[in-house]
């Protein structure tokens, strides 16, 4: 098989395997269902049209995420630069027993995530939610792998800090998590 055919085969396989991931990726970033479907479709069409610029099929996954990530940025820029409002997910909470420590901690994490500066948030989500390796996530964000690792580390530190601050005597508020904005206190620490 020549190179072009190789790539096309890899792409067809990826389409079946990754469509749900890419769609969910948009949803998890707070894009509503209809737009997320459009974005996912655009992502694959763009990938298909520019398939010739993909030199190594093994990088197809990070390449798709890279396109998706940029589509997301552009989509958001079109919507007057909304801050990231991560999807609320009540189902995820049910992985833990209500009232358990884990339940409380998971709730705090979901509240803290959207308040993280975006330069820390995206690396963290790509690695922990999208299951990308550090190298893959670095390619998606066009960062050196070292920088990416450092940012993930930094994000974890911020979350750990929030857990320590809010964990004791914390009462669950069922209000919507705050959007990105008032991140000063976290950022400076």
């Amino acid at each position, binding site marked *: 098989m020549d190179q072009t055919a190789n790539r096309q085969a890899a792409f067809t396989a990826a389409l079946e395997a990754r469509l749900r991931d890419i*769609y969910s990726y948009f949803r998890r970033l707070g894009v509503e269902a209809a737009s997320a479907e459009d974005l996912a479709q655009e992502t694959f069409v763009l990938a298909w049209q520019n398939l010739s610029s993909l030199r190594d099929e093994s990088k197809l996954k990070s390449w798709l995420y890279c396109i998706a990530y940029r589509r997301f940025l552009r989509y958001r820029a079109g919507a007057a630069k909304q801050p990231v409002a991560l999807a609320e997910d009540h189902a995820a909470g049910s992985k833990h027993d209500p009232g358990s420590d884990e339940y*409380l901690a998971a709730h705090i994490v979901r509240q803290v995530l959207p308040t993280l500066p975006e330069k820390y948030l995206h690396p963290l989500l790509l690695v922990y939610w999208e299951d990308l390796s550090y190298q893959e996530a670095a390619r998606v964000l066009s960062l050196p792998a070292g920088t990416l690792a450092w940012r993930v580390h930094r994000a974890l530190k911020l979350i750990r800090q929030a857990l320590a601050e809010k964990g004791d005597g914390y009462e669950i508020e069922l209000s919507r998590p705050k959007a990105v904005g008032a991140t000063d206190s976290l950022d400076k620490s």
Partner: protein
Amino acid sequence: MKSNYQDPKQLEQLIRSTKADFAPSEGLLNKVKAALAAAPAPASARKSVFRQARKLVHAFTLIAARQPVTDGKGHALQLGDRLPAGCKVMTGEKGRVSLITRGGSELTLNSNSKLALAKNGKEATLSRGELYCRNRAHEFAAILTAAGRIELLGTTVDANMKDKQTVAVTVVEGKVRLENAHGEAIVDSGKKSLLMAQLPPEGGETVNTTTETAWYDSRESIVSESGQIAYMIQRDMDGLVAEIWMMDKDGKNKHRLRDYAGYGSTPGPWLPGDQAVVIKTYFPIMSVPDLKKRRAHTNSGGCMFEPWEKNWLLDLNTGQDTAFSVPSEFIFANRSSMSPDATRMAFGGGRKTGPERKDYEAGLWVLNLQTHQTSKLLEGGWDFPRWSPNGKTIAASQMWSSSVGSKLVFVNLENGAINDPGIRGTDAAFSPDGSKIAYVDDYQGDYGDNWHSAYIGRVYVRDVAAGGVAQLVSPKYERCRGPRWSPDGTRLLYTVVHTKDLGGGNYDQSFEVFIAAADGSWMKQIYQGKGWLEQAAWRPGGEAIYISDTLAGISLVAADGSGVLAVLGGTKEDSTLSSAEQKQSDAAQAAIQEAVFQYVVGRIRDYEGKFAEAKKAYLAAADIFAGLPWEYPLLNFSPNDVIVYADKLNEFTRRDPSAIADDICKSHLDQLGFLLPWYSKEHDLNYPANLAALTPWAKTKICIVDSMWRIADADTMAAMVKCPEGDDFIYTPTAPGKRPKAGDVILQCPRHPEHKIAWEENNGKLHLNSLSALRSISNFGPVDEPSAQ
């Protein structure tokens, strides 16, 4: 909570558990497949990328835009966009756009304009509106309009479509050929004259040309007739990027016009019609903090960039700047000032002359901006040329020297007569009716603090025609500067600057502003400020004064002493850059720093006789300068400005090695001629036995206190004692304790026998001659008796 999630694994699991999962609707996969089937195949996509790349050979980059700006298909164009040749650019009601090519040509479209760029990148079709085109290296051949063809003969031109039939063509520089069905004409122009040519409407007979005479008010003011204020912000006090800003008279609507590499001075004066303002920029040499760390310190005289000072006419409508430059044979020009009718420029300066440009002459010059002819009015080093309001007389002050101070003379331009009333004075100003002159006498006290002393003193007013006794108008103060007449000619404004040396290169600056009656009957302090005073200028009505300083920005102060009327701002604090701009600003500063560093390295390598290395350094610097306008589009660097640097540096690399060697040889001898008398003065009038013995002593000498500028280090000294071609200088020291005779040769180059340093007698004093003549006219005054600091 029991766990504090210190274990990374545990925390990782927790975060993963917050991940939500979503399922797309059932039909999505098929929908995407259908979309893929409809999309073009990947193979063709690759080809289109190539086609795009080929188009970009004639690419234009968008360097400045005020929306709305769209391409032919209605898509908005953004800063930094690359536009392929063959595209269209349209501006809306308030839009304006500047495009620049890789070759440095610039196209600027005013509002309500439409331009189509030809596929070959050589022509542009203007279908409506106004186009400014700065053509470099014949990059563009012609501008096409419905009224005819404007052929560019290496020129800068402004084309303004009045209607379908008529286009007004202003030739800013060079010439153009106008051509249509009815005939053709060549329109020539001086550098800055406003020449208008109209293509004839249908049935017209000939192309007629008219010249508009510019009117110019020589009063220095930061404020225009309609009340706009132009000001300069130096974001970094080291002066790597000078930004020219503008505000309304009430301090509102602050916006940045242009950026320049280097320092700038307060903009002004304005040209009539509030269209353009004169600004000056300076090469950023002193601003590289790590020169010393990077072993690039050198003798201060060797680092002067030419042209050090540049004058620009910044057109506020188009954002274009035009240099009104001094001819290239001038190796320096100081404190230039424009005539009241904006046709001539006076400056103190020095140029190379003679068949091989090996000689040097300094003087007071007048440059005709239309014919480009320079004429010399006075011999020697002159400073502060000032025009009388009728443009017929120039007052100028001699460069300060310990023997004569700063002599103030008047030159009549009509008959060339020189009127020397025998007064010491600098920084003079004619009264609005031209009958009186105000000046500061050169300060008689302590000269030690800095060379600014040369234009600080008491303020006097004197009748120009009748002469007579000068009236002292600053009775209590001896350190005033910058007298400026009120518009009605009855009062004077002057400033007193206090500098406290805090050590370590830090200074505490404060200043006072005074107003005094021109007849000396009263004086009053109207303002006290902190920071560096940039300028104090009368408001056109004469009831208030604009004061601009580095801390408070621009303040409007009542002339009657009743205090501050308004603080208009205009400091770097109230003009914040966006983070993207800040990023570019930082990067640009670093780049300029690197370019200046390379330039200095080049000068030092030249000095050491390593011409190939010098060439490499100059080219590196030129590349950086030439890249500034493209690489930092948000900063809106003036392409004209940076291209002056790039051109000059390229010129350096093309010089003939023997000519450089000749120059450097002279400069070595001059430097030694400067050091030897100084050395003898510190060693009981004994001269070193040989030149190598000079090195350990010279290494300890620093030119300016607290600065990185050394007289010499070991390496430069080793290079200095011989001709760059390799021969040691012939050194004949004066015998110990003996007084040399005039004509005794102390240094000579065996390779260039005409290069010799000998004792000369002048006013009964012996001193060594200078080959470049630069020494006697430098800002530091003549070094007949060098004093160590």
